C-alpha cells in the first residue's frame, strides 16, 4: 500500500520537496515549541499544576481568551461589513479606506497601544465623552477588547473581501427572482457563501489577539486578577527568573490556542462540505 498520494505537478520531486518542507517547519516552528515543552518539563507534575492553576494565572487565562473571543466576534461582524462596503459600493476615497484597513498590520503595536490609551483615557478625545456615561475603557478589560479588536480587524476584512468579490451574481439574482426579500437573500444565500471565510477570519483574528502583547499593556492597566493578560504574566515571571513557571504557563496557552484553532478549522471544513 502506498503511504502518500501524490500528483504530477510543477515542483520537481515529491521526496525532496516534502523533506524540505518538514525540515523547514521543524526549524522554524517545531523546535522552538518543543524547547518550550522541554523547559516546562523540568517541573514535576504537581508543581506544573499548581503553577498554572494559581488564581492569578487562571484570571489571566480568563481575561486573555475571553477578550480575544469577544474581539474576534466584533471583528467578524464589522469586518464583514467593511469588506462588503469596499467591494459592493463605489464612493470617493474608497481606495484610501481600503488602504487604511491594513494600517493595524503595519503600525508598531506599542504606538497603537499608546494612541488608544491616550484617546480612551478619562480625559482623552473619546474617553471624556464616555466617562460621564460611566463607561471606562482605558485601564479596564474593555480596553483589552478594544486593543485586540484594533489589531485583528484586517484579518477578517482581508479574508472575506475576495470571497465577496467572487460571489456568483446569478445566485443572488435567482433568489431575488424567486421572490426572496433582502433579509432572506442575506441569510439564506449570501451568508452561507461567506461563512467559511468568516470562520477563517475569526480564527486568524482570535489567534492574533491571544498572542498580542505590545498594544494591550499600554491600555490594560495591568491589574493582577482584573486586567492582566497572560503574555504579560509570562514576561513578569521571566523578569523574576522563574523560567520554568513562565514556560509552564506558555505551554497551557499554546495548547489552548491549538485546540481552539483546531476546532475552528474543523468547523470551517464542515461549512465547506458541499464545495465542488
Amino acid at each position, binding site marked *: 500500500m502506498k503511504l502518500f498520494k501524490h500528483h504530477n505537478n510543477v515542483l520537481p520531486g515529491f521526496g525532496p520537496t516534502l523533506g524540505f518542507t518538514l525540515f523547514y517547519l521543524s526549524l522554524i516552528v517545531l523546535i522552538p515549541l518543543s524547547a518550550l515543552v522541554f523547559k516546562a518539563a523540568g517541573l514535576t507534575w504537581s508543581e506544573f499544576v499548581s503553577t498554572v492553576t494559581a488564581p492569578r494565572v487562571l484570571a489571566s487565562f480568563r481575561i486573555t481568551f475571553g477578550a480575544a473571543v469577544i474581539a474576534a466576534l466584533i471583528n467578524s461582524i464589522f469586518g464583514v461589513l467593511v469588506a462588503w462596503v469596499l467591494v459592493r459600493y463605489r464612493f470617493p476615497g474608497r481606495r484610501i479606506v481600503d488602504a487604511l484597513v491594513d494600517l493595524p498590520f503595519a503600525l508598531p503595536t506599542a504606538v497603537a497601544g499608546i494612541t488608544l490609551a491616550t484617546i480612551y483615557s478619562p480625559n482623552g478625545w473619546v474617553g471624556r465623552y464616555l466617562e460621564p456615561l460611566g463607561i471606562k475603557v482605558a485601564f479596564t478589560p474593555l480596553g483589552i477588547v478594544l486593543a485586540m479588536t484594533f489589531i485583528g480587524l484586517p484579518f477578517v476584512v482581508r479574508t472575506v473581501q475576495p470571497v465577496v468579490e467572487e460571489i456568483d451574481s446569478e445566485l443572488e439574482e*435567482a433568489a431575488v427572482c424567486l421572490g426572496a426579500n433582502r433579509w432572506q437573500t442575506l441569510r439564506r444565500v449570501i451568508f452561507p457563501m461567506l461563512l467559511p471565510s468568516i470562520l477563517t477570519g475569526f480564527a486568524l483574528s482570535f489567534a492574533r489577539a491571544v498572542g498580542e502583547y505590545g498594544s494591550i499593556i499600554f491600555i490594560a492597566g495591568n491589574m493582577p486578577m482584573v486586567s492582566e493578560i497572560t503574555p504579560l504574566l509570562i514576561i513578569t515571571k521571566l523578569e523574576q527568573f522563574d523560567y520554568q513557571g513562565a514556560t509552564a504557563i506558555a505551554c497551557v496557552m499554546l495548547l489552548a490556542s491549538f485546540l481552539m484553532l483546531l476546532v475552528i478549522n474543523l468547523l470551517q471544513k464542515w461549512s465547506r462540505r458541499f464545495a465542488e
Partner: protein
Amino acid sequence: MTPSPKISLQAVEKHFSSSHGEDVIALAPVSLDIAPGEFVCLVGPSGCGKTTLVNLMAGFEKPSAGTVTIDGRPVRGTDPDHIMIFQDYGLYPWRTVLGNVLFALEAKGLKGKAAAERATDYIDLVGLTKFITSFPHQLSGGMKQRVAIARALAVEPSVLFLDEPFGALDAFTRMYLQDELLRLWQEKRPTVVFVTHDLDEAVYLSGRVVLMAPAPGRVQRVIDIPLHWPRDRLGDSLGRYRRELFKEFHLVHQQAAVEAEYVI
C-alpha cells in the same frame, strides 16, 4: 376577437453609455405582444439584444424608453410570478435538491408539510425523485437544469423566462430537455419566453420565433410556426420553417458582417 396580451412591449429601447461616454444602443425600439400560454423564442447572433430584451421583461433592467407591461401592469422589478431560469442553473451548492426547491417556497412564505409536499411533487415531475437528497455537485448538468426548472415551476409562475438554459449542455441532453420542457409547458401552460442562439432549437420548440439582428439590437422578423406538438424533428413541415428561418438568418449574418467591416 383577440385576447388581451400577457406580455406587451411598446417601443421599448435600451441605451448604455460606453466607457468613452458615447451612447450605445443595445436595443432599438421593439414592439411585441405575447399571448397568455404562448411559447416564444428570441433568437439571434450575439449582440442582438435578446438577453437585454428578456432582462427588461423579467424586471432585471429598466427600459430607456417605452413600456413593458405584464397582465396590463408595467414591470417595475422582479416578481415571483415571473421566474427566470439561467444557463448556469443558479442552484445553491449547500442545499440538497429538495432544499433548493424548498428555497423558492420559503421565499413565497410556504412552510412545513404543505411546502415539502409541493416540492416533492415538482421534483417528481422532472423525474428526480431518486436524487432528492443529493447535492448539486453530485448531479450532471442536465439534472441540475431540471432542478432549476422544478424550483421555478414550484412557485407556479404564470411566466417563465429562460436565458439560453441548455447552452452549457451536450447535444443529447439538450434534445432530451427540450422535450421535457415542452411536456412541462403543455401540462402547466405558463407563458414561456425562451432565449437561444440555436435556430433549430427555436424552430422545434416555439409557436413563434422572434429573429433578432445586431448593431443596433432589433427585431428582424417574427415567424409563426403553427405546428402541433410533439413535432417531428426531421419532418417536412418543420423543415419548411427551418429553411425560412435559416434564409432570413443568413441575411442578418451578411448585414452584420458588412457592418462589422464598415466599423473597422
